[in-house]
């Protein structure tokens, strides 16, 4: 917090952070939907996707949002109305809470939280509550089944995710996301500091497990059993229409973006460039322009990771419910436990 920001009064800083949070959630969500959902998926199916609204269909998203906003706010007769109405907001709130710990630059962060990793993993499971609320309050058997499947899946894949992150935490020796970024970029591989020491190299198994769990947490195909449209209509979202569906939709893709941001912080070096390139030694010696370049680097890494998530989504068919649970409990969790043990042994050894 040097220089520029400290001269702004507290309320001004808070306002900036709120605006920044909204941008950090909505901008990636919109970009992801247009670039990947509209265009990349179409290209992978040998078609062009939306082409009419704006150049190459780039304004299609605004048309879709406009369409959703003018729809009637419907709810089923026997729905638990209050719960039904706030459920999408709970899901979206978890996304906003999640982005609060992501560091975007040496000074460009929302909160510098010591237990950042712990907070992020805890808050990301709040969306399970929203999904269960939506499933239960809809008074619809498909919604209920979808909600229960989602809860089972999200809890099952929360574990390998947490366990995969523990490896990173052990190696970094801190739970502060900012410190994890600094640790990766200030580090060196056997004395060679050309690329720092991104943990994807040492924690490769952890990275794979984390990305698979993210795929499941986002309920993206092949883990889209909760919203399996061929059997459950649309799972817990079945009864939603208009802007409440829009909020679920934004929540899904914004969370994809935020999880990709967290993955890039944990494994790919986050906003940083290897400190050796510019002769920096610690966070305080970093030049101020990194606060502008840092978010751009983060955005690039996020797009890269979301590309992989979406690529997998568009390529594979859906897991069956039992296969999905078996994969989490019998493959991912034992593997991540082995990973933790190996990491701890190596940490002590070196």
């Amino acid at each position, binding site marked *: 917090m040097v220089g520029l920001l400290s001269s702004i009064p507290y309320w001004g800083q808070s306002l900036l952070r709120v605006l920044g949070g909204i941008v950090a959630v909505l901008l990636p969500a919109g970009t992801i939907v247009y670039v990947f959902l509209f265009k*990349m998926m*179409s*290209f*992978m*199916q*040998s*078609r*062009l996707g939306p*082409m009419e609204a704006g150049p190459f269909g780039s304004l299609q998203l605004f048309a879709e949002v406009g369409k959703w906003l003018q729809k009637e706010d419907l709810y089923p007769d026997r729905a638990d109305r209050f719960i039904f109405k706030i459920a999408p907001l709970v899901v979206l709130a978890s996304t906003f809470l999640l982005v609060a710990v992501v560091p975007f630059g040496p000074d460009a962060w929302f909160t510098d939280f010591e237990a950042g990793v712990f907070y992020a993993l805890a808050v990301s499971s709040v969306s399970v509550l929203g999904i269960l609320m939506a499933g239960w309050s809809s008074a619809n058997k498909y919604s209920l089944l979808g909600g229960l499947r989602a809860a089972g899946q999200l809890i099952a894949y929360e574990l390998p995710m947490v366990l995969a992150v523990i490896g990173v935490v052990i190696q970094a020796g801190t739970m502060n996301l900012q410190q994890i970024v600094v640790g990766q970029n200030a580090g060196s591989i056997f004395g060679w500091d050309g690329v720092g020491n991104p943990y994807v190299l040492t924690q490769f198994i952890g990275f794979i497990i984390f990305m698979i769990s993210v795929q499941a947490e986002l309920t993206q195909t092949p883990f889209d059993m909760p919203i399996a449209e061929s059997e459950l209509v649309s799972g817990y979202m079945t009864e939603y229409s208009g802007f409440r569906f829009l909020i679920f939709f934004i929540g899904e893709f914004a969370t994809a973006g935020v999880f990709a941001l967290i993955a890039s912080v944990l494994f790919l070096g986050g906003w940083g460039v290897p400190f050796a390139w510019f002769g920096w030694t610690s966070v305080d010696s970093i030049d101020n322009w990194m606060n502008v370049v840092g978010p751009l680097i983060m955005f690039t890494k996020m797009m890269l990771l979301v590309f992989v998530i979406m*690529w*997998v989504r*568009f*390529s*594979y068919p859906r897991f069956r419910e039992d296969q999905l649970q078996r994969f989490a409990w019998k493959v991912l969790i034992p593997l991540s436990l082995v990973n933790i043990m190996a990491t701890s042994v190596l940490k002590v050894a070196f």
Partner: protein
Amino acid sequence: MAKVPGLLKGLGVTLGTMVETVTKGANTVQYPHEKETPPIRARGVIALHEGNCTSCMLCARSCPDWCIYIEGHKELAPPRRAGGKPRQVNKLDRFDIDYALCMYCGICVEVCPFDALFWSPEYEYSEPRIADLLHDKSKLGEWMETVPEAPELEAGAEKKGKK
């Protein structure tokens, strides 16, 4: 673990298709801007050659959907040769096909003994209102222009018709 090569191959297929679409273009066409030409003998719409029709009603009776409506009356035409009797001809008043009902089976085209009905590859005749899909004989006659020439006969086959 044994499934990993197959999984990677699957990813390769989608990535390959994406690269192909970006570099060589998609398999689809942007319909209202560019149009595909349907195959030459595509069954787009049924056209009517009014002069050949004798309002014999065979097509209307064979239609499984009962979507052909024919009305006609008899008229006296001048005799072919001098001093002959005036001929009686069937004059077609109404020949409508309701394309909201038609299922494009083509039985009417097959059954017509006087070559009055033809398949045309024309396909752009959608209407905002379902009742407007009832097309009358002048509209069916316009489509005659889009009917392709009959294909060449097979070697050795003889052309039927007036001697």
